[in-house]
């Protein structure tokens, strides 16, 4: 028995937004893989649950003719992993989705929940950050668009206002077309584990080894998922040598604010960043058909 005081279900998006404006204390639940576990652990008590899992408007993903991808927040990790379009065009997102939890969790956990919970270890976060994803947030008062980068406010804190629902995750074509990426989840186990560190990189590669438009995003390296602007700026136009890649890794550490937790010390996490950022870049270059030698 979970500690639930009230349970309601949304029938339509409009109805849901209206309900939320009248019940700001209600806890939105979708897949439940975070919320139910928090209830089980006693972190959430006497919760008023508001389930949005039936909302057809928030399911499925769309790709417009120009290539803009709009992911519905209720899309599950399994659906992302199994989507042929994403597999072909944004495989780094597929890769990230497959690294999360285990199959049963991926079958119900939603991408929107992963974002809205604001976990620093969220497996979708680094990749969506690297893709410059933009969030569509809707409330009874209207819609706003927020870059994912600005959405994270602190550990477990996101810029989701009372009464607001995440209604879509947009990835523009210019953010992924021509890019190659790689996600490395560093954890103790291959499945059912929380990332000790997550690294997602995207880049374009010219002439087999010249880096362009490098994006480096990290999970669990700061209080929120972050990008590494200094390292990205340095990487622009550089020929990828072992030395350059190492320097990019070193610079990436400067953007971090890692802390010591029971999973890993700050020093170890910094070491991982310096080590894994170059490795991820190498893999991305390999995916691009480049040399990726280092």
């Amino acid at each position, binding site marked *: *028995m*979970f*500690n*639930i*005081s*009230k*349970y*309601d*279900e*949304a*029938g339509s998006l409009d*109805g*849901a937004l*209206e*309900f939320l404006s009248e019940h*700001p*204390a209600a*806890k*939105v639940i979708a897949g*439940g*893989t975070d919320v*139910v*576990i928090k209830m*089980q*652990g006693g972190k*959430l*008590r*006497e*919760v*008023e*649950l*508001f*389930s949005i*899992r039936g909302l057809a408007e928030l399911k499925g993903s769309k790709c417009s003719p120009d290539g803009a991808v709009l992911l519905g927040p209720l899309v599950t990790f*399994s659906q992302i992993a199994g989507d042929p379009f994403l597999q072909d065009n944004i495989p780094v997102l597929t890769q990230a989705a*497959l690294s999360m*939890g*285990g*199959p*049963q*969790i991926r*079958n*119900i956990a939603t991408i929107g929940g992963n974002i*809205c919970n604001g976990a620093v270890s969220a497996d979708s976060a680094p990749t969506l950050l690297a893709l410059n994803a933009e969030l569509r947030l809707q409330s009874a008062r209207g819609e706003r668009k927020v870059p994912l980068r600005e959405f994270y406010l602190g550990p477990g804190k996101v810029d*989701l206002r009372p009464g607001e629902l995440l209604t879509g995750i947009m990835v523009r074509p210019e953010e992924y077309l021509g890019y190659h990426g790689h996600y490395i989840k560093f954890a103790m186990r*291959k*499945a*059912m584990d929380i990332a000790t560190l997550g690294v997602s990189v995207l880049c374009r590669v010219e002439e087999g080894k010249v880096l362009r438009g490098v994006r480096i995003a990290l999970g669990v390296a700061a209080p929120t998922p972050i990008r590494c602007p200094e390292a990205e700026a340095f990487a622009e136009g550089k020929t990828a040598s072992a030395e350059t890649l190492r320097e990019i890794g070193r610079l990436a550490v400067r953007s971090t604010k890692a802390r010591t937790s029971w999973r890993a010390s700050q020093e170890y996490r910094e070491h991982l960043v310096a080590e894994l950022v170059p490795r991820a870049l190498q893999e991305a270059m390999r995916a691009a058909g480049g040399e990726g030698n280092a």
Partner: protein
Amino acid sequence: MREGKGISEAMRMPGVKGLSEAEGLSEAEGMSEAEGMSEVKGISEVGVMRMSEVKRKPGDGTTPENVLRKISFTVNGKALTLYVDIRESLLEVLRERLGFTGVKKGCGVGECGACTVLVDGTPIDSCIYLAVWADGREIRTVEGLAVDGQLSPVQEAFVEEGAIQCGFCTPGLVLSTTALAESGKEYSREEIKRELSGHFCRCTGYQNILKAAERAVHEGGHRCAHCEHEREGEKRI
């Protein structure tokens, strides 16, 4: 997101008006105290017994109207309509109320996979799946796999490969393997490992489990050890 207050207030709100408004659940609306209870009796006595045992704190406002929902679903092909408590997991309903004890309770937080059942053919952890979500779904448990005492091919494969030690993880693993086998898709050994990675076997009998799963998924019971069949690019089991 969560605000700690205002909860008891909501609990004391009489009736279910607030609920049906947002939900559009006409059934819930019609569930006045007297009606609701008699309906409960008619459909499932378990429901009534459950209510009398419902965990309540004095004065917390828990009434059948605000914690019970009528759901209809099938379990192993049998259609059922019953009242479930909004606070119950599907695991609790299946195990404790319907007697499907093949659904094991392990970690309770979706990590061990012992409680795995198939919902519309998809493996999920029933310990973190609210019972109300089962409405309109087809649930399969390990009890539903054998037909007329004849084990399913996946069950056979587990028996043949000795993929069972204490047996606690077995129902879940058999169900996840069943979903793979029924998908009709091809899976490499690595993919099978990945697809079974949401199950813990604390006896550590993973090798035989993997063998059983490979056998069931690839061959539908076909035994590679006794023939020349070998898949391209794959080592023989």
